[in-house]
């Protein structure tokens, strides 16, 4: 559908041009990961053990970074009114905005993750597992975040509320993402079980996120 294609192109173009998207998320990711060895000390064995968890946590925070602007920016400049008057279903409009956000924020994190894994002494299989779990898990974070972004759309300082709303909902994704990533590096637990559940969580959030966010946006019409 050309309307949704136009929206995808526009959102990605803005994200890249304003610099709030790809680069900022990855830089934040890098800064958080770099802080960890300073905080826990230069204990390589410990870093290796908690590495996947730290990377996942940092990815979670980084993907929330620009999310509060997702609908708020459109609300402030009046674009949201026109998006609501579109002939495309609002659920799809919301989903496309989520997709554009993931492509400019989530995907760069996945690409940067192996590089940052080196800082935490992750070996090759652990890095592979980390990339795969992030690739599958970050869309879930974005689409769960859509709900919070839609609820906090009219608030001036929606960022904090967004984090408070979204982080608890992201707990299952975090648990199974880290479990799968750890399974590959530690090797005692199977990788398949938590990974399958992670996939299921992502598929669920891909469906529930756009519907809930669209419902929240319609509710804002008051």
């Amino acid at each position, binding site marked *: 559908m*050309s*309307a949704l*294609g*136009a*929206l995808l*192109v*526009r959102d990605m*173009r*803005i994200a890249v*041009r*304003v610099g709030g998207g790809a680069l900022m998320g990855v830089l934040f990711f890098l800064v958080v990961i770099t802080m960890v060895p300073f905080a826990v000390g230069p204990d390589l064995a410990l870093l290796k053990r908690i590495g996947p968890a730290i990377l996942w946590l940092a990815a979670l925070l980084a993907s929330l970074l620009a999310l509060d602007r997702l609908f708020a920016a459109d609300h*402030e*400049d*009046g*674009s949201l*009114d*026109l*998006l*609501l*008057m*579109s*002939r495309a279903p609002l659920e799809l409009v919301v989903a496309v905005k989520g997709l554009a956000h993931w492509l400019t924020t989530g995907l760069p994190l996945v690409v940067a993750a192996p590089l940052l894994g080196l800082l935490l002494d992750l070996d090759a299989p652990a890095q592979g597992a980390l990339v795969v779990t992030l690739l599958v898990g970050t869309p879930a974070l974005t689409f769960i975040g859509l709900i919070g972004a839609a609820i906090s759309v009219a608030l001036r300082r929606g960022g904090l509320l967004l984090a408070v709303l979204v982080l608890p909902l992201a707990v299952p994704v975090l648990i199974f993402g880290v479990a799968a990533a750890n399974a590959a590096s530690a090797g005692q637990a199977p990788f398949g079980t938590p990974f399958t559940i992670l996939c299921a969580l992502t598929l669920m959030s891909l469906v529930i996120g756009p519907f809930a966010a669209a419902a929240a946006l319609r509710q804002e*019409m*008051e």
Partner: protein
Amino acid sequence: MRLEAANLACQRGGREVFSDISFSVSSGEVLAITGRNGAGKSSLLRTIAGLLRRAGGEIVLQGGDPELTIAEQAHYLGHLDALKLALSVAENLRFWAGFLGAGAPAIEAPLEAVGLDALADLPAAYLSAGQRRRLSIARLLAVQRPIWLLDEPMSTLDAAAQQRLAGFMRAHLAGAGIILAATHGSLGLDAARELRLGEPA
């Protein structure tokens, strides 16, 4: 085509903005919505555009596309220009033309009509308020929709641009369009009927 509203009511924040508003506008007609500040002119337009929930009453479009809602057949020109400052003039218009319309509508002619063709590659951030307004108006020309909902369309426009907008409105009416415009001043159209909203409660 005929847009009819019966006993429309609107509440915001628990307070009644207006109630019992009825009107009907046919193809080729313009309805000027007047009233003092706070009388509910913008709220009425937003209600018709489906952006505010009706507290009561009915709006029907007779002779329109039965597959589409009224909002999907209407252009809404609000106080905000719905422009992305990071994008160029042409990119902004191309997006709205592609998003609101079907296919890839031409944007050169609308840009030329509002006098922004020379600035097509300039980021919208560098436009003046009046130029942003004109870019917003170009959207109405780029995509054909039968109903125009205009909220203070003449504000921030200079005399020449106001005349040009009046020309666009005349052309739209001549093409059997419907215009509802909230306004304080003149729209520059002869046959404008007036809907005067009452004093706020």
